[in-house]
Each structure stands twice: as structure tokens, then as C-alpha cells.
């Protein structure tokens, strides 16, 4: 199994190479087949969906399905996609900014209580956010904010793990000497943060933004708890509501399948565009 990449002493046997590649291809098939099924299904009408083999095409009805989705409830699907983009963008922007500021504050200023704050941040980032969904709902219901955009945005803004990353980035990318020099030049602390530090932490900022964006796009339980008007749904919740209807109205199935496929597209484009950052982001989030 040794190869060019490892430059090992022993040449790989032909059989080993075939075996390795074969096994990898098998798992590749496993990883791709369900998505393939989704693509194929989105081209089928209701009858073909149940009467033809699921992993291969029959006559193409993608256009009809597409049109049906667009027309359903005055284009509610487009609205859901729009909501997802809105929640993810605003939520991730807010969270990134708050995280960078807090991380920078913790890394660069030895204020009283910094240790306690750091411990809290670490402790809170170990807890999955789903835990708080119901208590959050209770509070938001009490102050009458459920079913508004704030009910999903405000909880997204507060991300202890982002703060932890912010601190790591501030530690490693903002030199103390530079801050000292700016102070001597008469810059205020706020000015230093906005025009020096933020720029230096931009790579870290993009990574935090991206992790947040993906997390919010995929989030399901918070909107499920907080929102109940169809027009406020993000696309994940919208698809769930279609699925529920599909259990009694079978012709919803083509909508669910085509909608699922369409809902992946914006996220895929986003991840593709930020490819460079998300690999480092995954590793940052897991190995640091």
C-alpha cells in the first residue's frame, strides 16, 4: 500500500493497490448513491417515482417539478430559501463580530475575571446548543418574540466556541508590539481593534463565519421550537412541513424530493466558494 506520496522503501504490490482502490471506490459509492437517488428522483413524476427503478432516469419531468415547487403556495419555497440565506448570513455575521471582539478582549487585556470568562467559554462550548432550545423558547415566548426573526437570530449571535476560536486567532495573529506602536501614535483602543486587529484576524473571521453559516443553515430544532408561521420558516423546516403533508397527500413526494435537492444548492455553492477556509476550519475546530 506504500506509494509515491509516502516515498516508502517497499514497492506496493499490484494486488494491494487494486484492493485499496477498490475498497475506497466502494465507500465512495455508498457516500454518493443517496444523493444520486435524489438527483434522479427530482426528474421523475409521481407515477414514475413509484413504478421505475429509483437509481436510473425515466422520462424527464424536472421542469414540471421545478415549476410546481415555484408555484406552490405563492412561491413559499423561494421564500424559505431566502429566509435560510437571511438567517445564516445575519446570524453568522453577528456571531463572528461578537466572537472576534470577545476573543480579542480576552487575549489582549488582562482584565479582572478573564480566567473565569475563559473557563465559562470553554465549558459552554462543550455543551451542544440543542440543550438550551426549550429554555430559550420559554423566555422568548414570555417576552412575545417567538415567531419573529429575533427568536432565531439572537441565540445564533452567542457562540462560545466562536469566542474560543476568536481568542486563539487574536493570540496568534495580533502582535502586542503593533498594538503598542499604535497606542504611541495616539490611536484609541477601539480604533486599534477596528483598523488594526480586525484586519489581522480576517482569516480567522472568515473561518468562524463559515462554520456559523453552515451550522445555522443546517439547524433544525431552534426554528422548529421558535417559529410556527409558514412564511418565517427556513428551508429545513419547510421541507419537514412538506414531508408531514406527504404522509397523507402522496403527490407531495415529488415536491419533497425536488425541494431537498434544490435546498442543497446554495449551501454547496457557499462551501465551494470558501473551500480554502473550511478545510482549515474543520481542523481548527477539532484539533486545536
Amino acid at each position, binding site marked *: *500500500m*506504500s*506509494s509515491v*506520496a509516502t516515498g516508502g522503501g*517497499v514497492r506496493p504490490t499490484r494486488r494491494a*493497490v487494486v484492493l*485499496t482502490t477498490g*475498497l*475506497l471506490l466502494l465507500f*465512495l459509492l455508498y*457516500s454518493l448513491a443517496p*444523493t444520486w*437517488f*435524489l438527483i434522479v428522483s427530482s426528474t421523475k413524476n409521481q407515477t414514475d417515482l413509484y413504478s421505475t427503478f*429509483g*437509481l436510473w432516469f425515466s422520462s424527464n419531468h424536472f421542469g414540471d417539478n421545478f415549476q410546481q415547487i415555484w408555484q406552490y403556495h405563492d412561491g413559499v419555497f423561494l421564500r424559505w430559501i431566502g429566509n435560510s440565506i437571511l438567517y445564516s448570513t445575519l446570524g453568522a455575521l453577528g456571531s463572528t463580530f*461578537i466572537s472576534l471582539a*470577545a476573543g*480579542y478582549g*480576552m*487575549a*489582549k*487585556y*488582562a*482584565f*479582572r475575571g*478573564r480566567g473565569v470568562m475563559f473557563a465559562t467559554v*470553554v465549558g459552554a462550548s*462543550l455543551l*451542544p*446548543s*440543542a*440543550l*438550551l432550545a*426549550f*429554555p430559550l423558547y*420559554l*423566555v422568548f415566548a*414570555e417576552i412575545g418574540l417567538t415567531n419573529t426573526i429575533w427568536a432565531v437570530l*439572537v441565540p445564533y*449571535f*452567542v457562540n*462560545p*466556541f466562536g469566542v474560543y476560536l476568536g481568542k486563539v486567532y487574536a*493570540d496568534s495573529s495580533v502582535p502586542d508590539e503593533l498594538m503598542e506602536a499604535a497606542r504611541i501614535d495616539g490611536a484609541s483602543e477601539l480604533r486599534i481593534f477596528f483598523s488594526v486587529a480586525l484586519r489581522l484576524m480576517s482569516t480567522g473571521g472568515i473561518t468562524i463565519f463559515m462554520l456559523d453559516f*453552515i451550522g445555522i443553515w*443546517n439547524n433544525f*430544532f431552534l426554528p*422548529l421550537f421558535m417559529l410556527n408561521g409558514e412564511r418565517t420558516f427556513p428551508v*429545513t423546516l419547510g*421541507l*419537514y412541513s412538506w414531508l408531514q403533508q406527504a404522509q397523507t397527500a402522496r403527490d407531495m*413526494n415529488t415536491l419533497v*424530493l425536488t425541494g431537498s435537492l434544490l435546498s*442543497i444548492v446554495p449551501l*454547496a455553492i457557499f462551501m465551494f466558494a470558501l473551500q480554502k477556509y473550511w478545510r482549515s476550519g*474543520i481542523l481548527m*475546530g*477539532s484539533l*486545536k
Partner: protein
Amino acid sequence: METSVSTLTRPPTAATDSPVRRSSPRRAGGRGAWKGLLFALPFLVGFLATYVVPIGFAFNQSLQEKKSSGLGFGPTQIVYTGFANFGSVLTDAAFWSSMARTLCFGTVQIAVMLGISLFLALLLDGVAARAVRFFRAGLLVPYVVPTVVSSLMWLFLYSPTGSPLHDMLARVDLDFDFFGGLNTYLSLGNLLTWQGIGFNMILISASLQALPRELYEAARLDGAREWRIAWSVKIPNITGILVLTGMFSLIGRLQLFAEPLLLRQIAPESINTDFTPMMEIYDKAFKAGNYQYAAAESLVLAVVTGILAFVFYRITNRKMS
């Protein structure tokens, strides 16, 4: 999948806050150090609003109960009943069995998932660089698919009508019920494993690449076979990371919710409303309308999660020191 990024993260270690870093310009008590608090203020206020207050509020709610006056015909009113709700939750067999079910299932599923990820990472370690890039991209596709969508895809694949999986099984005369008895766990486990193997493979790959080459170069020169090197050199050196990833994935699993909730749509008799603790809380709150009891359950689940996280954190720190 939303939780995967945060749950797979390692607990930050003391190393990131080393004494060298402490000598930053604004020392403790130094002039202007308090300005750091200003930068942290938005977060601290948010933390208060979305962590501290909700927990306090939920605690307050959990001390109350909805009681109807008279013979149950009168208007209901909310009264404080002390720890009565907690007493009921602590002896609630359905709640604790959902907890035990999720933990047992999670342990097995995570072990299988990490096993496959490790296997794939080791395979990737042995193919040419160009092929690595190709396989890695393909194997990561499930990570890009949102949880709800991947649950939907597998839901259609598992459903008895119109599923190519059933068609293929029928061709070899196999009639497999994806939600019959223990098969439910297989189906759910397959869905979660499918979502997670690519992501975890990347993590394991990275730690394999971080191993010093000398570790196994010597063994290779001695003529050791590759599988032998993998088994006795590579795997023992990354066991720590595997255990860590596994433990924190398990904490995430305890909050399992979206996947079983979606699969329940076609298998309501195999996946009950109290299948996982979060499903039970959701059901109690929004179907039964008992907010007070759901609040108590949420807090108990939070405490159990906290204890697990604390124990795991201690185990890890001991291993590292």
C-alpha cells in the same frame, strides 16, 4: 449535522493560555485592562440573555405545575409545587429509558462510524496524492448535505414503496423491513454513520499526517507490511484522539432529535415520541402542552450532559498530563 462541528471539537487545553501569553500589554490591574471587558461586553450580555436567563427561567417554570381547580372542570391555574416535577422526572421510566437507549445506541453507532473513518483514513494514507484529493472530495459529500435532507433521502430509500433499495433486495428475494424490531437501530445508525464518516475521516487523516514519519519509517525499512505498520504503529498513536472524538460525539448524540423525528414519519410504531430525550421534551412541551414538566426534563438532561462532559474532560486532561 449542525452539532457535529461543535461536538467534535476538542476541549481547549491549558496550552493555549500559556504563561508567556499572559505578559500581554495590559497586565492584571494594569492601567486600561478593564477596556478588554468592553470588547467582551456584547458576548457577555448575549451569554446572560441566552444561557443564564433561560436556564434560570426554565428552573423557575419547573417548580410549578398546572392544576385545575375543583373536579377538573374549573379553570387551570399555575401553582408552585416545589421539586415535584423533578421528583416525577427522576422516576420517569420513559425518560430514563430514552436516555439509556440513546447512550447505548450512540456508543455502538459512534464506534462503528469511527472504525470505518479510521479504516478509510488508513486506506487514503496508502494511495497516490492525486487520488487522495478525488476520494476525499467524494467522501465528504454527505457532510455538505444538511441533516434534514440526508434524513429525507434515507427515509425515501427505507420506505417500502418506490425505493431502489427495496427493488434490489426484492431481486434477490429478500424482504427487509427497515423498521422491524432492532432494524430500526440499524437504519438510524446507517443514516448517522453515512453523515459522519467523511468528516471524521478528515479529522483522523489529519492526525495521521501529523505523526512523525520516523515512527514508522524504521519499521518500513525492516520490511514490515503496511497493514502491520497501521496496526502496531499508526493506530496506537492516534488512539487518544479517537477516544476523545468518540466521547464528544456521544455528548452530541445525547441530543439526537432531527433524524429520528423525520424517520418517525414513516415508522411511527417503531420510533415512539419518547425515542430520545429531546424528542420526549419536544412532545411533552408542544404536544402535551406541559411546559413545566418539559422544563424540568430539559434541566435534568442538561445536568446529565454537563456531568458527562466534565467526566470526559477530566479523563482527557489526565491522559494528557
